[in-house]
Every structure is written in structure tokens, then in C-alpha cells.
């Protein structure tokens, strides 16, 4: 492996960021767009070259893909604890390089069209580069400390990008919320790092993850509230990951983050940054698996499953298409966490792990595509709301077909990418726990409903009189759509299991036919429900309410059943349960977070009186404080 080339992958975007950031006002938009795109293009080429080198040239060493580390000692923190900086190449980091570079390249190209004429064009590209740099740094990190630094950097760049439209009050609020909520989660991450670092004496992934090594073979038994220190550390780290990957209840920032420009949503809030949490758990997977028989991993599984269901239900009710996609992202991330949570370690038992990474990969492609299509639609109709759209297939054929492919992919219809990865997840979950499988299959159905709900709503549905006739986006925007659509249709055929497994040996993957049939049937059922309800503008619900009082409807029994079905699905399921969940999300979960914030402010106001400004009060406080301390220490703590 040529490490000097790998190092360039993150360094090129960094250089682009510095150049664009420093020359902000001095270069025109055409030049800055060109610099940005060519920088990331170079990184993409290098990423693919690295993948080729790693999987093709280096290949398996004694039956497993090797973990290649090149690092320098950056700081000797104490005599024993050392902090390194470097790059770590293993199957998942190579896969992430491909994901990040590909999606980032597409988003860069797309942004040249989407952001055209925007005041802060250059600033936008410099932030994008900063983000890409941080994300590369994150996936290449060799140790916990390094990953944390880039983790935070990713957070900062996301803050800057969400708040990009800084004249919009809501965008600024969303940026702040995202930053603070994820920082709140990072509390856990940080303390987890401290715990693990001090307990094991190393931050190094290699040493931490070695199944035969000293750390994993003798983790200490219960020491604090019935769990071992390492388990606590892993749970805390998972909290950090849950914050970034928008797991319940730390997901509240993600829907608001949709205030950012749409390409940003595609890159950060669909394909790359939000999967950082999944990646983190995968990165430490051997630890999660071996410490205390995978107790922490159980938590990962259940949190993942719940988030997947919760978000899918809410996605049904949203009318802002970007918000639907945001909840959908959360739901799919839940899938990935769930799959990790049920995975085993050796050989084909690592199916969960493999399928999680596989889904991460395919999801990055089709979700980025969905967002970019949504951006294209928003660009055309100047609104995020479903009610302002309809029949757009006539005006935007490329966007329409791309969106359809992505929707088929996320719904899990073969042969599109999502089918393959989701099917593997469901198989893995089924082998582990049938209850979780039930949730998984339910979510699969809901996914098909909500995605086709917006698909039909946007491209079919009601005839709408547009003020300005919408038109297809420029080629700079449709080109990435086509590329991603091709990828969404084909990447499912990559034999992922021979490249990626927890023990890095790879295994023979196969499709479980009965399971696949069930999954596809559920997906088709969901698609069918959406078809009936949303393909044409439906007034069935209002008709239903009109006729309920009228006696003759009772005679039309068949019709009645039909309507009852509609009533149940639309009014009870959608308005009742889903709206209830949405309300819960908005008021209880969000409210609790706000309460924490607000009570801090209130407390701060309450204690204001202490600072009276009178020096005699200060002296009084000084003396009484001293006396109190003296009493406390002399009478209470002195033996």
C-alpha cells in the first residue's frame, strides 16, 4: 500500500478548504466550483485506487483481510498512555472511503447547479470541503482519540452548513440545535473514551479490538451498578454514536437540520455524517461483541429497532418532503444499528455486521439520490410542501425516473440495491430474535408506504396549476442523479460478504429465498397501499365523512368495507397513531430537551441576585464561605 497517496485523500479537501476559505472574496464562483469539484474528484480517484490496491493487490493475508496501520506517535500522554495519529486501512474504512468520496463528488457537482447565483457560493464550497476532510479523517482514524477529534470537526462543519442560510432565523436555530444536541451526546462519547482509555491503557483500535488480546480476554466483571467498566464505556460511546446517527431520543436535531441547503442534506444528513455512529459501533465491534457477552450490543439492537419503527411511523405523517426523507434516514439508520446489534463474530455468523455495512453502502447511494431528487423538485417548484406538487413526471422526466429507482431501492424491491442489503438484515435479525424481526418486517412495509406516498404525491397525484411551468433541472444537477440512479440499481450485486465480515475473513453469501419472498411481499403490499391512497388525488376520506350519516351507504356493504379499510388506515393508523407519535416526538422528546435548556436559563436568572454589586456582601460571602468550609472540614471530614 502506498500510504502517502492515502494521506492525500483527506489532505486534498483540506487544501481546498484553506484555499477557498482564504481567498473567499477574491475568486469568482466558476473558479471556486471548479477547484472544489476537481479536488474531490482527485480524492475519489485515490479512494478507488486504494480500494483496488487493498482488495485486489494486497488481498487476503492468511485467510483474512489485514488491518494496515501507518501512524506516528503524536503525543506521549503519560508514561504508558500514548496518542497516535495516522491512517488505518481495513475493509470498512476502505468501504467508507468509497462512500464518502463518491457521494461527496456527486454532491459537489450537483451543487454547482443548485447553488448557482447564491451569494455565498465560495463559502459553501469551502465548508463542503471542510466537511469532506473531516469525514475522511474520521473513517481513517487509528484510535479513539483521533476519531473523536474528527468526530467533533464533522459536527462543526455540519453546524456551519446547516446554518448556511444565516439570514433565515429557523436555519440558525436548527444549526444550533444540531450542534448542541450532538454535543450533548458527545458527552457520553468523551466520558466513554476516558473510561476505556484509562482502564485499558490504550486508545488504539488494534489493541482494543484484538479478540485474543489481553483486553478482550479478561474484561473485568461487574464493578459499577452490575456492569463492567468496559461495558459502561461502550454504552457511553454508543450514546455518542446515537447522537450523530439520530437514534431515539437523540434524533430531534435531524428533521430540523433540513433547513440547510438540500445538497448538504444529501451529503451530511443522509449518506455520510449520520452513518458515523453506525461506523463507530462497527469500528469497535469486537469490543461490543466480546465484552460481557455483548450486553452493550443488545442495547444497540433495541435502540436501533425502536428508532427504525418510530421514525417510519412519523415519516407517514409529514408533509414536507425533506422531513419525510429525514425520518426515513433515521429509520434506515435504525436498521443498520439493529443489524449490528444482532450480529455474531465468526465467519458467516457475522451476517448482521456485514449486512449493516452493506445497507450503509446502498443506503448512502439511494438516500443521497432521493435527497438530490427532492432538491431538484424543490428547485423547480420552490416549495418543500407536498401540497404544492403533483404531476411533476410530465415536467421532470429524469428526476422522476431517478426518484422512482431510489424509491424502489429503499422499499426493497428486487433487483434494486436496497433489496439485497435489507434482505440480509432481515435474515440476520430473524436468526437472532423473532420479535425484532417482526419490527423489522413491519418497518419494511411502512417504508414502502411512506416513500411511495411522496413519490405519488410529487410525480402523480392531483393536477396542479403551476404559476411558472416547472422544468427539468440543468445537466449539472441531472448528471449526478443519473450516476446515483445507476449505482442504486446495481450496487446490490456486489458480493459484499466476501469482502466484509467482523473477523475480516469474508464468507459465502446467499439469498434466503423464503425470507426474500416475505420481505418483497410486504414491500409490495406497502407499495399497493400507497398506490390506492395516493396515486390519484383521493377524496375518499372526506367522502366517507360525508356519507357516514347517510343510511344508504349501509346497503353498499362492499363499498363500506372498502371505506372502513380506508378509515382504519387513514384515520386511525395515520391520523391517530402516527400523528400521535409525531406529537409525542415534537412535544415530549423535543420538549424535554428544551426543558433542560430552558431550566438552565431560568436557574441562571434566579441566582442573579447573588451578585449584588455591594462589596460588603462580597466580603460577607467570602468570610462565611471560609468559615463554612472550615467547619465542614474540621468537624466532618477530619478523622
Amino acid at each position, binding site marked *: 500500500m502506498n500510504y502517502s497517496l492515502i494521506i492525500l485523500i483527506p489532505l486534498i479537501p483540506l487544501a481546498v478548504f484553506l484555499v477557498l476559505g482564504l481567498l473567499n472574496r477574491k475568486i469568482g464562483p466558476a473558479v471556486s466550483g471548479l477547484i472544489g469539484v476537481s479536488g474531490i474528484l482527485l480524492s475519489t480517484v485515490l479512494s478507488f485506487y486504494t480500494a483496488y490496491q487493498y482488495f485486489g493487490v494486497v488481498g487476503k493475508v492468511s485467510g483474512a483481510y489485514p488491518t494496515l496501520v501507518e501512524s506516528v506517535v503524536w503525543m506521549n500522554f503519560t508514561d504508558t498512555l500514548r496518542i497516535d495519529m495516522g491512517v488505518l486501512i481495513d475493509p470498512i474504512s476502505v468501504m467508507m472511503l468509497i462512500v464518502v468520496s463518491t457521494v461527496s463528488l456527486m454532491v459537489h457537482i450537483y451543487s454547482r447547479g443548485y447553488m448557482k447565483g447564491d451569494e455565498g457560493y465560495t463559502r459553501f464550497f469551502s465548508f463542503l470541503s471542510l466537511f469532506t476532510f473531516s469525514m475522511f479523517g474520521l473513517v481513517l482514524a487509528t484510535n479513539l482519540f483521533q476519531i473523536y477529534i474528527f468526530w*467533533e470537526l464533522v459536527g462543526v462543519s455540519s453546524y456551519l452548513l446547516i446554518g448556511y442560510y444565516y439570514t433565515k432565523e429557523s436555519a440558525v436555530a436548527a444549526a444550533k440545535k444540531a450542534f448542541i444536541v450532538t454535543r450533548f451526546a458527545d458527552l457520553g462519547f468523551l466520558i466513554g473514551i476516558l473510561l476505556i482509555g484509562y482502564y485499558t491503557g490504550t486508545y488504539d483500535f488494534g489493541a482494543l479490538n484484538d479478540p485474543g488480546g489481553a483486553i478482550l480476554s479478561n474484561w473485568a466483571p461487574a464493578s459499577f451498578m452490575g456492569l463492567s467498566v468496559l461495558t459502561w464505556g461502550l454504552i457511553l460511546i454508543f450514546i455518542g454514536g446515537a447522537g450523530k446517527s439520530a437514534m431515539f431520543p437523540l434524533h430531534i436535531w435531524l428533521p430540523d437540520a433540513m433547513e440547510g441547503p438540500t445538497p448538504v442534506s444529501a451529503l451530511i444528513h443522509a449518506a455520510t455524517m449520520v452513518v458515523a455512529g453506525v461506523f463507530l459501533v462497527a469500528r469497535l465491534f469486537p469490543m461490543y461483541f466480546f465484552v460481557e457477552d455483548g450486553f452493550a450490543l443488545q442495547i444497540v439492537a433495541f435502540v436501533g429497532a425502536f428508532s427504525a419503527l418510530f421514525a417510519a411511523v412519523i415519516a407517514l405523517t409529514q408533509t414536507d418532503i425533506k422531513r419525510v426523507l429525514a425520518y426515513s434516514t433515521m429509520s434506515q439508520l435504525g436498521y443498520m444499528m439493529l443489524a449490528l446489534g444482532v450480529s455474531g463474530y465468526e465467519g458467516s455468523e457475522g451476517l448482521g455486521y456485514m449486512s449493516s455495512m452493506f445497507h450503509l453502502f446502498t443506503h448512502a447511494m439511494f438516500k443521497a439520490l432521493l435527497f438530490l431528487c427532492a432538491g431538484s423538485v424543490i428547485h423547480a417548484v420552490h416549495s418543500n410542501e407536498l401540497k404544492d406538487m403533483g404531476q411533476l413526471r410530465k415536467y421532470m422526466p429524469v428526476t422522476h425516473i431517478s426518484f422512482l429507482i431510489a424509491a424502489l431501492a429503499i422499499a426493497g424491491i428486487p433487483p434494486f440495491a436496497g433489496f439485497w442489503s435489507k434482505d440480509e438484515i432481515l435474515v440476520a435479525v430473524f436468526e437472532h430474535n423473532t420479535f425484532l424481526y417482526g419490527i423489522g418486517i413491519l418497518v419494511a412495509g411502512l417504508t414502502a408506504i411512506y416513500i411511495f406516498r411522496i413519490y405519488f404525491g410529487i410525480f402523480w397525484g392531483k393536477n396542479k396549476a403551476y404559476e411558472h411551468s416547472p422544468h427539468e433541472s440543468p445537466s449539472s444537477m441531472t448528471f449526478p442523479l443519473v450516476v446515483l440512479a445507476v449505482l442504486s440499481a446495481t450496487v446490490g450485486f456486489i458480493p459484499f460478504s466476501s469482502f466484509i465480515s467482523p473477523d475480516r475473513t469474508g464468507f459465502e453469501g446467499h439469498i434466503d429465498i423464503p425470507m426474500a419472498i416475505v420481505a418483497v411481499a410486504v414491500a409490495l403490499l406497502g407499495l399497493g397501499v400507497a398506490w390506492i391512497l395516493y396515486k390519484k388525488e383521493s377524496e375518499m376520506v372526506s367522502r366517507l365523512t360525508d356519507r357516514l350519516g347517510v343510511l344508504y351507504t349501509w346497503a353498499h356493504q362492499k363499498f363500506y368495507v372498502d371505506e372502513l379499510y380506508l378509515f382504519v388506515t387513514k384515520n386511525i393508523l395515520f391520523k391517530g397513531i402516527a400523528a400521535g407519535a409525531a406529537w409525542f416526538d415534537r412535544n415530549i422528546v423535543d420538549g424535554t430537551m428544551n426543558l433542560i435548556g430552558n431550566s438552565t436559563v431560568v436557574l441562571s436568572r434566579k441566582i442573579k441576585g447573588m451578585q449584588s454589586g455591594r462589596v460588603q456582601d462580597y466580603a460577607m460571602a467570602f468570610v462565611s464561605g*471560609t468559615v463554612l*468550609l472550615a467547619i465542614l472540614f474540621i468537624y466532618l471530614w477530619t478523622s
Partner: protein
Amino acid sequence: MDMETLLLLRQEVSLLLIALVLLLFEIFANDRNRAGVVSLAIVLFGLHTALGFMDMKEGELFGGMFRTNALIHMFKNILNLGVLIVLLQSAEWVKKELIPQNRGTEFFILMLSSLLGLQFLISSGDFLMFYLGLELSTLPLAALAAFEIYRMRSSEAGIKLILSSALASGITLFGISLLYASSGSIYYAELQGAISENPLTVLAMILFFAGLGFKISLVPFHFWTADVYEGAPIGIASYLSVISKGAAIFILMILFFTVLKPLMHLWENLFYLLSVLTMFLGNLFALRQQNMKRFLAFSSIAQAGFILLGLITGTTLGVATVIYFILIYIFSNLAAFGVVQAISTETGKEQLQDYEGLYRTNPKLSLVMMLGLFSLAGIPPVAGFFGKFFLFTAAASKGYYFLVFLAVVNVTISLYYYLLVVRAMFLRKSEHPIPYFTNTVYMRIGLVITVIGILALGLYSPIYDYIYALSSTLN
């Protein structure tokens, strides 16, 4: 005074000489060249700072009253560097406000005297020298705080500082006398090992600690801080917030880690308690401040609470992380204070809302401010993150997980108010933003040094390695 003595006292003698030269300049100056004192002082002090980096031998003087070694010497250099930045950032203000009134020289002489006091303080080998240093460092500050006498707030600040510090040093002195009463000595070397746990020594420790707690602005000895910072000239506030605070922490660390080591099981609890109180109160008050100087005052109180996390350990790692943090804190806080200084000197504006839309008119200043605040908030990869992370690791290494948890909660709270300022500068528009202005060369140098410090300290690891190596000499 032989050559040996002179070399060990090099730093102090050099400071005195500069003060004398400035005094002579003042005598012979006339109205035309009076303003030259600014450049003269800065150049001389810059020279002094640079020469300070030459190696220093270890040794004792005056029968053990004064001592120096590589660790102390390094800390003196850190203080020098900090004061140099403060002087650079104050230069324009001195020219504008003080030179016309013919008080420029006084400013420099008083500030250098205070620094001289701090140098003696951290070099002290017994409590007499300790006390002399403490007083010498405080008295000029009271005069400096009241330097803009025509402003009521400034005289108020001076009065508050002198009254509070008189009380504090009285209590400290009482503590010292009790320590003497219980052990029969005031020499650190003799006290070491002579202290045992009994009510008298515990009381002595608490009283002694209160006096230093005042300088560090720990809760409940912190009340003077906000009022004095707000009223005093900004240069003085920044001096108080980093230089005098840093020196007090350093000597506190030396004394508690060596002389008072036998009472460690007690002062651990003391530090724990005050750390929690200080972090929370500092942060909660900082949330609501509209005046930038008051805001920075409470932020500096909260930062002191974080520093206690390193002090609580009593280990080499604790010493190293605390010194490293102070060094970073000096750069970060002076970056923020420097920008406040620049804006206040130019426009007289000091409120948070005045900063709205600053990025559009003065992008460079805003970036410096942002960097300083990010560093104070501990956001990677700027230096402040490493400082905090290391402090927390040090505390975690001794098993203080809950304290670390509380500290991390506080980091998040503090993030909120630091972001408020960043938001005002970058994300808000204002009808009347602060117009564009250019800074003087001195101010620019002062700010650039802080920026370099903030960026380099975290990433250039030999500095930490060096501090760590020296720290092991303390125990």
C-alpha cells in the same frame, strides 16, 4: 551580590531594570516624545521575554527564601509571554487614553511591578517571600484597576479590588500564622513532612486556601471578579484573568502537592466541592451576561473550576495537564480579550449586541474571536480541546468519573454561551454594525501570537512532552 545570585535572579532583576529605565525615560521625556514610552516598554519587555528562554540553573537564595528550578523558570516564561501579549494589546489604549494625561509610564511600571510580585510569589521558598510576592502583585493592580479615574466604574473597580484583596490577604496571613503555630517554621522545606493532620493545620489550610482562591476566583471567593473586570481597563482585566490567576494556581499547586501533601485526603474533597460549585455558578452566570467583559469574567471563573480537575489528582499528570491548560488558556482568553480591547478602544462598545454582524465588517477580528471562544469552549481541533481533554483524563485517572461527568455537562453549558457570541458575530445582521477599522501593528502582533498559540499548542506535541518531563521534578 555575586554573579551566581544575579543569574538566579535574572528574571526579576531584568524586570526591575526595565522599570527603572522607563522611569528615567519619564524624567527626561518631553511632550513631543512622550508617546515613545509605549514602544520602549514593549521592545524592552519583548527582549526580556526572549532572554527568559535561556537556560536557568537550579538554586536557592537568601537562606532558602527564594528558589528557582526548571519548572518555575518555565512558568515565569509563560507569564512573561502572557504579559507581553497584554502589553501589545493595550498599547493603543495607552496611547489614546493615558499619554495625553501623561500617565503612560505609570501604567507600564505598575504592571511590571505586579509581574515582579508574581515572579517572587512563584519562586518563594518560604511563606514570608510568598506573602511579599502576593502583596507586591496585588497592590499595583488595585491602582491599575482604577486607572481610568474619570470613569466612575473604574474607580469602583479599584476600590472593590483593594477592599476584597485586603480581606483575602488578611485571611491568608492568618492561615500562615496558624501553620507556623502548629509546626514552628515558615520554610517550605522544613514544613514538608512536619505537617500532620489536626484541627489547627486543617483550619490553617482552609484559610490559606481562601486567599489563593480569591486570586483564582473560585466560588465563593469570586464575587469581586465580574465587577472588577467590567470596571477596570480591559488590559487589566485580561491581566487579572490569565496572568495573576495562572500564577496563583501554580503556587497553589506547588504548595498543596508538596508542603500540604499530608492533608491530601482533605483537600481532595475541598477541590472537588469548589470545582463543582465554581463550574456551575460561573457557567450559569455567564449565560446571562450582555456585557462582554462581564461575560468573560464569568467564563474565566468557570475555567478555574475546570482547572481544579487537574489539581485534585496530586500527581505528575495533574501538574503537567494544569500547566498545559493554563498555557492554552492564556492564549485563548487573550485572543477573546484582545478583540474586546480592540473594539472597545476604537469604538467604546462593549455589549454583546454591538457585536452583531461583526463578521461582515471586520472578518479578521471575528475569526480571531471565534477561534478564542472555540478554544475556551474546548472544540477540537483547537488547543482548548486538548487542554480540557487532558484535564479530564487526569481526573479520570484517579477515578473521579462523576466529577468528570459534571465537568463535561458544564462544557456543554458553556458551549451554549460561547456560541451566542459566535452567532452574534457571524449569523446576525445589524442595523448599525461596528464599522470597519484597521488595527495598529502592536494589536495585530498581539492577536497573531494568540492565534498561533491556539492553533499550534494542540497540534505541536513536543510542548506537552516538555511540560510533562519538567512536571515530574515537582514530586
